């Protein structure tokens, strides 16, 4: 099983770090194979930047993503650039405030990651919230592996805050899945309709 992932957004949002955490979590934490191809050049300095991650049970022969199974978009420009590649069975994760216009052919999950990060006190942690959300929704990496990698990848002294951010995104992901399930079962409210 090979999972091809594109994380995209503005340069400076921590897109590359997010990609690296996902890949590291898969390889060091979950003992799988993983690769990371990161955007260099002008994109990573403010444009539509991206990180391409492949996670696989078997050795990976080619590190570039051709068709993403999972697209994580944290900016409209990033979404526009890669949304054409989405297939019906892909999964799209977006920051709902930063990607207002979507028209995806596949399952789509939204989270207000940047707003949540702001309410936690640091806008910078939006990417960690997104990793938590990603982990809950896609299960491409295990929670423990992701959380440990987050701990090892963030600046010393900020581990606790980042853990909190991760859990916030993770819980939101679980709630989103639960809500989706409930809605599908026709149980939207607390009082039976």
């Amino acid at each position: 099983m090979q999972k091809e992932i594109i994380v995209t957004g503005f340069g400076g949002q921590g897109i590359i770090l997010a990609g690296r955490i996902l890949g590291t979590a898969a390889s060091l934490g979950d003992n799988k194979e993983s690769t990371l191809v990161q955007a260099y050049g002008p994109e990573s300095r403010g444009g539509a930047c991206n990180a391409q991650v492949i996670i696989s049970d078997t050795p990976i022969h080619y590190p570039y993503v051709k068709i993403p199974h999972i697209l994580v978009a944290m900016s409209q420009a990033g979404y526009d650039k890669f949304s054409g590649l989405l297939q019906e069975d892909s999964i799209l994760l977006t920051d709902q405030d930063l990607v207002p216009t979507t028209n995806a052919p596949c399952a789509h999950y939204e989270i207000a990651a940047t707003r949540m990060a702001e309410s936690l006190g640091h806008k910078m942690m939006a990417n960690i919230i997104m990793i938590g959300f990603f982990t809950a929704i896609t299960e491409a990496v295990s929670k423990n592996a992701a959380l440990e990698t987050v701990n090892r990848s963030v600046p010393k002294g900020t581990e606790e805050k980042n853990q909190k951010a991760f859990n916030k995104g993770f819980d939101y992901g679980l709630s989103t899945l639960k809500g989706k399930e409930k809605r599908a079962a026709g149980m939207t409210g607390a009082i039976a309709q």
Partner: protein
Amino acid sequence: MNKQTKIILFLCNWGPHAAYLSLQDEKQNIPEAVHMVRIPCTGRVDRALLLRAFAKGADGVAMIGCSPGTCRYGSGTPTAIRNTQDTGTILDLMGIGQERLRFATFLPEQSEELLEFLQTFLHDIQKLGPTAITTLPDNPLPANPLNLPREEVSALVNTYDIHACQDCGKCSSACPLALVGKPFSARGIATAVINNELYKTNVQENVWSCLTCGLCYERCPSAVNFPAFIKELRYLYQKNTIQGNEAHGGFLHSLMRSMASPDLTPNRYQNIPEKLKIDPDSNILFYGGCAPYFDIFFSKHIDVNTEKILFDSIRLLNFFDVHPRLLGDERCCGHDLLWSGEQRHFKEVARLNVERLNSLGIETMITTCPECYMTFKTTYPDMGFQLNFEVVHLYDFLEKEIDRGAVEFTSFDKAVTFQDSCRLCRLEDRQELPRQLLARLQPNTFTEMRESGKGSMCCGNTAWTGCDSYSKAMQVKRLQQAKETGAELLITSCPKCQIHLQCAMQDPFREEELQIEMLDLTSVIAQTITWK
């Protein structure tokens, strides 16, 4: 015949008493167990008296009146039937069984039928055996009730540091009772305690009418914990047989005192809506509290449905996939016993509760009643009753779950305001808790009342003690404050606030002026929460 069996017979003076006289004249064998109380009309035997008979040790109570249409006063029989039914329903809930309370009518010439009735009733009661209610022995009469034991009074003064009172009067200028004009003074009580004048009738009246709402403690610059002090002072009064003025004829006090009987096994939650999901093996217990008793009792006068709050709580737990355990033999928490000086009964209730609840192996108890919350969370441990699980207010649970995200609230087109519960907002210092949830709701507008949060006004009464015209004046004032905000919906957080404010709305001279829709915060959340 079992000599222990005791049947109280309330017998109407007019019709059936003649039949009873004939039985006596004919030297018929009226069972010894029957203790007859001759009364002017069964309609005047209220529900409090019926329940008190059981609370004081009766095994069966028979109300015998006149057939409908033959009542001398017209409405006696239907009233008596209603009272018997209400009390019967409550006896069922308490696990005593309504078959122990029977209403019947006899004409003066039906002496044989009356005798047969009494014998059958006695037979039935003997088959049922004695009730599970046991009574604690009465306090011994003090040598001189006017002279309260000096050392106990000074112990009180020391414990609550009454000497710290500076007589500044901030309490009086905050006290809602004093502000509606009642001759009531918190510092007056403090002075009386120091001067050993607790026997004075006006001091006694004041001690029994205190709301224990905690507003004076909030304002006191010397931090004299007045509510706790009053609580202890009432206990001291009770020990010296100085009784408070129990509201509602003492019905609710009889009910709560009966809960101190070890063998009593209440029979709760028989009417849960089918769709609610309950799991008897869950490690989360939902503790409902006394709402169903209140509903039955108060439905005679006002339109209350506080049991709905319990069902809505369970709905919300289910919404978040918690299928709680319920306790069929749930007792009351004892809050009102403690706060009306009945510390002995409270301790019994607490001991029984702790024993039962600790044996369940649960990890969490969730409750939505602010009084149950405070009593289990704080009072029990303070008085040495340790629980082996965590006590959580439903609002805490909801706030945590909602904060995870992916739920939203449907908007509703109403202006709302909020009535604080004194226990939750002041005594437990959690005024922010309901407000976090209120901020998530999507009403038309939300406006706080003139007095809100820590400075909010009490609903008029605590612990069913000392309700009078000043309580009513307070309730009217509070409802006017609510109306002032332009609110169409008053959100409450305690079933008693609902009952008390609803009561004031019955005022026939102020109809429109005071009418406002009321809903508990739990119900509002249950109605508007949805998955995103």
